[in-house]
C-alpha cells in the first residue's frame, strides 16, 4: 500500500509533508525550538523520576540510564504521536477533502512524514548526548534505513485504519488516546524486559520491535538481521496490516467525503 501510494503521488507527498511540518512546528510561539524542548523535558522528567523518585542509582546492565531511556523514548515519541493523531487525519483536512478531487489515500503518509522529519532532527541532536556518554554514532547506524522503512510500512496502514474507523465511530479518538497511556507503561521504554516478558512483548507488542531495534543500533551495536525470526514475524504483521488497510480503504474511499 505504502509503495503504491508513494509511487503514484511522490511529488504531492513530498510537498504536503514539508508544508505540514512547517504548520505543526513553525507557527507556534517557540517555533522550531519546540521540536527539541518537548522530548528533552519529557526525558529529563522521567530521568529525575527514576533518580530522585524511585531512588534508582547506577545504570541498566552497564548502560548509562539516560542513554538507555533516551534511545527507547526517541522512537516512542514518534510512534505515540502518530497513533495519537491518527484518528483525526481525515477530519482535520476537511477543506481539502471537500474542495476538489483530493487523493485522500496520501494523508496518512503525509502525516507520518511530517512527524518523521522532526524525529530525524531530534535523533541528530540526541547523538550529541549519546556521544558524550560514550556511545558515538557508528557504522551500525545504517540499521536506521531499514528501521525507518519498517516504521513507515507499519504506521501508514495503522494510521489509515484508525483514521477510517474514526470517520464512522467518533469515540475512536478518545479510546485511542486513553489506551496509549497503559501501552506506554507496559512497553519497554523505561525498563529492560527479561524472561517471559521478552516473549510476551515480542508476540503482542509491535512497538517493542522498534524500540528494541533502536537500542540495538545505538547501544548494543548489532545488525538488524541478527534476530531474523523476529523480523520475519514483524513483516508478516505488516503485510497483514497493509492488506486490511487496503481492503477497508477501498470499501470506504468514496464514502468518506460524504460522511464527513
Amino acid at each position, binding site marked *: 500500500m505504502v509503495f503504491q501510494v508513494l509511487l503514484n503521488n511522490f511529488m504531492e507527498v513530498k510537498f504536503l509533508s514539508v508544508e505540514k511540518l512547517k504548520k505543526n512546528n513553525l507557527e*507556534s*510561539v517557540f517555533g522550531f525550538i519546540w521540536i527539541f524542548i*518537548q522530548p528533552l*523535558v*519529557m526525558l529529563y*522528567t*522521567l530521568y*529525575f*523520576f527514576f533518580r*530522585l*523518585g*524511585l*531512588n534508582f542509582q547506577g545504570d541498566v546492565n552497564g548502560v548509562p540510564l539516560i542513554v538507555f531511556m533516551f534511545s527507547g523514548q526517541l522512537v516512542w515519541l514518534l510512534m505515540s504521536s502518530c497513533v495519537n493523531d491518527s484518528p483525526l487525519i481525515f477530519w482535520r483536512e476537511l477543506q481539502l477533502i471537500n474542495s476538489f478531487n483530493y487523493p485522500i489515500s496520501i494523508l496518512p503518509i503525509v502525516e507520518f512524514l511530517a512527524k518523521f522529519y522532526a524525529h530525524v532532527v531530534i535523533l541528530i541532536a540526541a547523538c550529541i548526548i549519546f556521544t558524550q556518554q560514550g556511545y558515538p554514532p557508528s557504522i551500525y547506524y545504517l540499521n536506521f534505513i531499514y528501521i525507518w522503512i519498517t516504521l513507515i510500512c507499519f504506521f501508514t496502514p495503522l494510521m489509515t485504519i484508525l483514521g477510517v474507523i474514526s470517520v464512522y465511530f*467518533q*469515540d475512536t479518538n*478518545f*479510546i485511542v488516546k*486513553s489506551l496509549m*497511556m*497503559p501501552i506506554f*507503561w*507496559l512497553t*519497554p521504554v*523505561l*525498563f529492560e*524486559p*527479561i524472561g517471559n*516478558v521478552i516473549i510476551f512483548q515480542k508476540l503482542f507488542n509491535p512497538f517493542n520491535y522498534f524500540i528494541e531495534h533502536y537500542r540495538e543500533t545505538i547501544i548494543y551495536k548489532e545488525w538488524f538481521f541478527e534476530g531474523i525470526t523476529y523480523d520475519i514475524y514483524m513483516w508478516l504483521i505488516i503485510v497483514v496490516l497493509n492488506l486490511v488497510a487496503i481492503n477497508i480503504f477501498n470499501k470506504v474511499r468514496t464514502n468518506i467525503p460524504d460522511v464527513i
Partner: protein
Amino acid sequence: MFEKLYFFTKHSIAKQYKNSFFGSFWAFANPIISTFVYYLFFIKGLRFTGEVDGVPMILFILSGNICWTLLSGFFGQSSSYISKNKANILASNISISFIILIEMISSFVVHLAVLSFSILYFYMEGQTISIHYLNFFYYWIIMFIMFYSFSYIVSILALIFKDLQPLIASSITVIFLGTPVLWVATGKMIIIQKIINPFYFFISGYRETLIKKVYFFENIEYDIYIWIITLILVLVALLIKNKYKETLYDLL
C-alpha cells in the same frame, strides 16, 4: 439554588454519558486500570517486589492514584471550562462560577464511585474501615475551594493567552511524575514537596487517611500553610473576577 445545581449537574453528567459511552466508562475505570498498569510496570518491568511504606504495593499505588485522577481532572480541565461552555454562557444567563461548579461536581461524582470501590478493595485486602475516613470531607472542602479559584483564574486567562491551555495540558505528565504518586518522598524531598507542590497535600492526605490512619489535624503547620495558599488563590480569583466583569463578554 440547590435545585438548579442538582438539575444542571444531572444534565451535565447525562450529556457526557450520552455523547460517549466509552468516556463515562473510562472515567470510572481509568483510575483502577491505571493502578493495575503501574503495578505491572513495577512488578514485571522494573522487577520491584514487596511492600512500599509498610503496605502492599498495589494499595500504596491505588490510594495515591485515585486522588491523583481527581486532581489531574480538575487541573487539566481548569483552563477549558469557559471555552467548552461558550455557547451556554452566551445563550443563557448562566454565570461562569456556576458552570465551573457544575463541571467540578460532575468529575467529583465519578470520584466518589471510584473511592467507594477502592475502600471496598482496601477492606478485602485486610485494612479496617475506620473513623479516620471523616478526613475526606476536610480534604474535599480544601480541594474544592482551591481548584475552584484556580479554575476561575485560569479559565479566564486562557481566553486571553491562547498558549495557556496547551501549556497546562502538557505539564500534567511532568507534575504527575514529580508528585509522589508512584514513589515515596523521604527526607529533604518531603520538605520540598510540601513547599512547592500543593498536590502533595492531597495525595499524602489520602494516604494518611486510607493507610496510616492519621487525623488531618495531626500535622497542623502544613494545614495552615495550605490554607494560606488557598486564601491567596481565592483573593486572586476575586481580583480577576472584578477586573474582567465588564469585558468578559467581549473576550468570548
